[in-house]
């Protein structure tokens, strides 16, 4: 193999690896999706919650939400598909529909307000980033390990 061919082969391999890595970064990006069944006020208008929403993702029920409840699901990739079984009034009929939502790549946790989403509001109204507000407990400093031990761990 001459030098040019060798160089081309190497560059080609590198390009393929970079391309695979890029694809993996997109298709494997994980998100936690929080689904809120909470009333929403947007531009002076109030969007009320349905009586009950059952959320199914990939055929599995992930949440059954009444008023002011939150459920969550995990999703790999940016296309989030969910099936909602919505009961508007207590004892009323159930409507079933499947929805697809494009999740922003840069958000680990995404909150989707269901009444806002079902009302057809723009993304900025129903989609927000999840930021943990739980009070952080003071954590004990982790010990910095020494690693020249001859211990037997799980193998």
């Amino acid at each position, binding site marked *: 193999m001459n030098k040019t061919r060798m160089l081309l082969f190497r560059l080609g391999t590198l390009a393929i690896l970079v391309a695979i890595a890029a694809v993996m970064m997109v298709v494997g990006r994980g998100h936690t999706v929080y689904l809120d069944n909470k009333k929403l006020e947007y531009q002076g208008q109030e969007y009320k919650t349905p009586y009950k929403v059952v959320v199914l993702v990939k055929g599995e029920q992930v949440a059954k939400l009444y008023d002011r409840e939150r459920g969550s699901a995990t999703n790999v990739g940016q296309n989030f598909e969910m099936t909602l079984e919505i009961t508007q009034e207590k004892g009323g009929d159930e409507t079933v529909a499947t929805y697809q939502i494009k999740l922003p790549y840069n958000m680990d946790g995404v909150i989707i307000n269901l009444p806002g989403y079902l009302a057809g509001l723009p993304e900025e109204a129903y989609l927000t980033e999840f930021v943990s507000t739980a009070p952080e407990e003071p954590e004990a400093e982790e010990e910095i*390990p020494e690693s020249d031990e001859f211990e037997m761990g799980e193998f």
Partner: protein
Amino acid sequence: MKEKNMGKKLLSLLQANSVPVTFVLICAVCIPLSGLSVSYLLNEIVTRMGRNIFLILALLIPIMSGMGLNFGMTLGAMAGEIALIFVSDWQIWGIPGVVLAMILSIPISVLLGAFCGKILNMAKGREMITSYIISFFTNGLYQLVVLYMMGPIIPIKHFSIKLPRGYGIRNTVSLLNMRQCLDNLLAIKVGGVKIPVLTFLIIALLCLFIVWFRRTKLGQDMRAVGQDMNVARDAGINVERTRIISIVMSTVLAGFGMVIYLQNMGNIATYSSHSQIGMFCIAALLVGGASVEKASIGNVFLGVVLFHTMFIVAPKAGAAITGDSMIGEYFRVFVSYAVITVALIMYETKKRKVKSQMAQQLAQEQEAENE
């Protein structure tokens, strides 16, 4: 006469396979004493086969090129861990996360492998002890990067990965979102035993690659270098380059193996996962009947089965015999190190024996010439 020959053959066969035979005996005694069910034992062995075989196969190429047991495979393991830390921070889940970690580990493994190979070229004939010490040295570098540079210099976003002080990586990094993703995909259950088909397919591919690689020009060069460096050099083979390539390949494969190993475990023990990996992989390979200068794919499989059977049953058997499971723990630690020690002693004894035989032959020839 025939019976005598048969007896001699059997004795030499037993001598040649003394380590695997000993382990078969140990397992045969310990399995019934442990009281573990057959399905539990099989499940554990199959899981451990999927977890460890790739890592152990990484040791075959340096043995082929005469560089002995590559204790420097730890370097590849570190590369795999660093790649997994990044993937975990970037929140890439499942199989894409595993693939990305493998790709990310390649440049780090190549750099570390080339560095290790260059040093081993300066220490020909003392490769094993040198690679062992290199792994300690590189562990220091790894700690510097992971404890002090990750955070302030190398961006790490998630606080669940960082130490509470704001920089450095925690003792344990969770891989929950990719835990056993390779093992569970295409997995089948046979008689209550879970077979991780995809992991075994990947292992089979690596075995095929090794078989194919041995027949390539580079593979033949490595074997020639392994047999006699001077003859190989005279034949026009670039010995130093071939040796570096073999270490680089071993390190890259070890990086992949570590990713497979850790996805099975489901978490990274950041500062200790890699530290003993080389030792146990080498012990398993030797238990399978390999030596410092000769190892095959069969040795890898046999070694994993025997070594890990001993690993699983020893604590329970120890508890049954002495009433203290720690005895079994000590026993398996003792056996791991002992098998490496015995293999190294046998290698050195054999080498000296061959040397003295050659010297005797030379002396006889000279005597005959003088007469």
